[in-house]
């Protein structure tokens, strides 16, 4: 895809602020958002309308990370995987299983306190949970890349689809009903009190926002690293990549692992947010969601998938209210229209047309200055 390499030959480094002006303004607005809502509605930031809106944004932040993780694979490395929900679901289930079955067992037997007498058992167990999610995600990424290393094209898509489906079936399997709740899933996961999304909505809001920002910076850095440049080169011409001395299989694995980490962490956050893990999180629909969010926003841009996740949040929330059960139909039509008119997604198309738009805007403003 025409991800125009904007870096110039001559090293020009504008100030950090000027370079990311828009992003920083948006970030400040997002930080202020709960308080602005509270001012507008006259309700405390942790209750009522502000609480509802924070919930909408929390969901958006988490899904944005999930969409970005897919963009790293599809947009940057050119890997079209249809098993992405397995990464998301693995993160969600790892977190939920640990908090439901293991963490309570351990904390009922051991107490870890700081010298001052402060009980940090749950905090430590939560950190262990995050580490477990990380490990499981890495293993999942390696498993996917290992299983699909020798196949290309349609066969690759089929294999990833099959593995994804296998994990979905596993999450529904009645054999493990005592552990996973099978079809029902796990509900009422005992999330540590200090980040309980219902009681500490505002805190969770900032945690999710922080999560998205950190993951964005992490993924952006990866895509700009020497390794990330090879990802893009593989997307462009895998054969030549091999001929100049890179082993594509290694880089594909790395892309898979990095993507799985981001997707797994977003799944874990999602299970904390919903205090549950359900088979729907491992389903093909969840994979398709990643695809739609990424394509909507613009593949190979990272910012695009964030926008795509935002749009998706708006669509799923309000279209249901407006159109009832028929909302996917309306959404489908809008999706088709967007793909037809914005073939490179919102961000991709904008970047391609930027020069033209700028010229148009100058022409437009010149008219007015000329009239004076």
């Amino acid at each position, binding site marked *: *895809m*025409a*991800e*125009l*390499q904007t*870096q*110039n*030959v001559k*090293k020009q480094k504008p100030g950090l602020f000027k370079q990311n002006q828009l992003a920083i303004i948006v970030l400040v607005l997002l930080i202020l958002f709960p308080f602005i809502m509270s001012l507008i509605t006259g309700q405390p930031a942790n209750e009522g309308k502000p609480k509802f809106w924070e919930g909408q944004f929390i969901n958006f932040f988490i899904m944005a990370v999930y969409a970005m993780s897919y963009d790293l694979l599809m947009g940057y490395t050119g890997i079209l995987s249809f098993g992405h929900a397995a990464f998301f679901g693995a993160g969600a289930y790892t977190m939920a299983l640990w908090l439901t079955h293991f963490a309570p067992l351990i904390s009922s037997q051991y107490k870890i306190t700081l010298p001052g007498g402060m009980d940090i058992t749950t905090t430590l167990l939560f950190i262990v949970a995050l580490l477990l999610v990380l490990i499981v995600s890495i293993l999942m990424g390696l498993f996917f890349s290992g299983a699909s290393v020798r196949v290309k094209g349609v066969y690759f898509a089929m294999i990833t689809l099959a593995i994804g489906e296998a994990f979905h079936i596993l999450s529904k399997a009645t054999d493990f009903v005592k552990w996973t709740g099978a079809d029902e899933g796990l509900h009422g996961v005992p999330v540590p009190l200090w980040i309980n999304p219902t009681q500490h909505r505002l805190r969770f809001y900032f945690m999710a926002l922080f999560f998205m920002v950190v993951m964005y910076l992490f993924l952006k*850095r*990866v895509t*700009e*690293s*020497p*390794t*990330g*440049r*090879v990802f*893009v*080169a593989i997307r*462009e*011409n895998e*054969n*030549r*990549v*091999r*001929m*100049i*001395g*890179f*082993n594509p299989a290694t880089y594909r694995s*790395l892309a898979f692992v*990095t993507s799985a980490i981001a997707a797994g962490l977003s799944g874990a956050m999602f299970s904390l947010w919903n205090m549950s893990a359900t088979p729907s999180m491992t389903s093909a629909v969840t994979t398709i969601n990643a695809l739609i969010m990424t394509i909507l926003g613009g593949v190979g841009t990272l910012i695009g998938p964030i926008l795509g996740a935002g749009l998706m949040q708006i669509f799923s929330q309000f279209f249901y209210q407006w159109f009832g059960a028929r909302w996917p139909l309306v959404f489908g039509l809008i999706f088709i229209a967007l793909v037809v008119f914005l073939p490179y997604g919102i961000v991709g198309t904008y970047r391609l047309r930027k020069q033209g738009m700028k010229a148009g805007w100058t022409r437009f403003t010149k008219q007015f200055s000329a009239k004076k």
Partner: protein
Amino acid sequence: MNSDREIILEAKNLRKEFGGLVAVEDVSVQIQARTLHSIIGPNGAGKTTLFNLLSGVLKPTRGFVYFKGQDITHLPPHRIAHLGIGRSFQITNIFPNLTVLENIRLASQALGGDNFRLLKASSDFQKYVDKALQVIEWVGLKGREADLARNLAHGEKRKLELGIMLAADPQVLLLDEPTAGMSSEQVPALLEIIHSIMNLGDKTIILVEHRMDMVMSISDRITVMHLGGLLAEGTPQEIASNQTVQTAYLGDLYGDLTESMEGKNG
């Protein structure tokens, strides 16, 4: 010359079959270090297939490839690249949606040992950018650094093709018809690049070319392939006067051969 008859690359009884078709048949060639060795032959003679065997793209049905005495027959292409064997392609093989600079920078990064620095910006590794800029100037693409490779003219793409190979600083360079599709006005610039490579003193070039005047004037040795097998080998003079080559094949296919040799000698 006789003092350093070091064989840098050797093909031994190479055979490659595609189904029933034998594309390369019992080919043995020794490439002497620091020479320009051309491989000529009509379309379909098996020259590109031989290159594919030497660079690891294809595995031979039978036979061996040795680099500095080491058996590299079954090494994957990226390992062969790391040994110092570079390759440019008959059919332009570039990164179309990346800039000229990035095309070449990637190639210079490939063998540098910083490929797994996931959390450092690639712009922090200035040495690869510098190397790329130097190669860009070398192949005559200065001023085109920021252009997307797909927007280059054909001749420029051929130069980029060479640049990608040169950026890795290989010892042995396999050039598969570098002038393919070029007009005759563009050839001298390319010849100059090839001369400048040889002038470095430590490079070995294996060249596949159809332009006979060019081959005759720049080669130290020439191997003639025909229907997958070897027809003859020798110095340009020997090849030009070789009766088998003359009658069996050069006479009608490269009618201008004797003329161009005579022109050179006279």
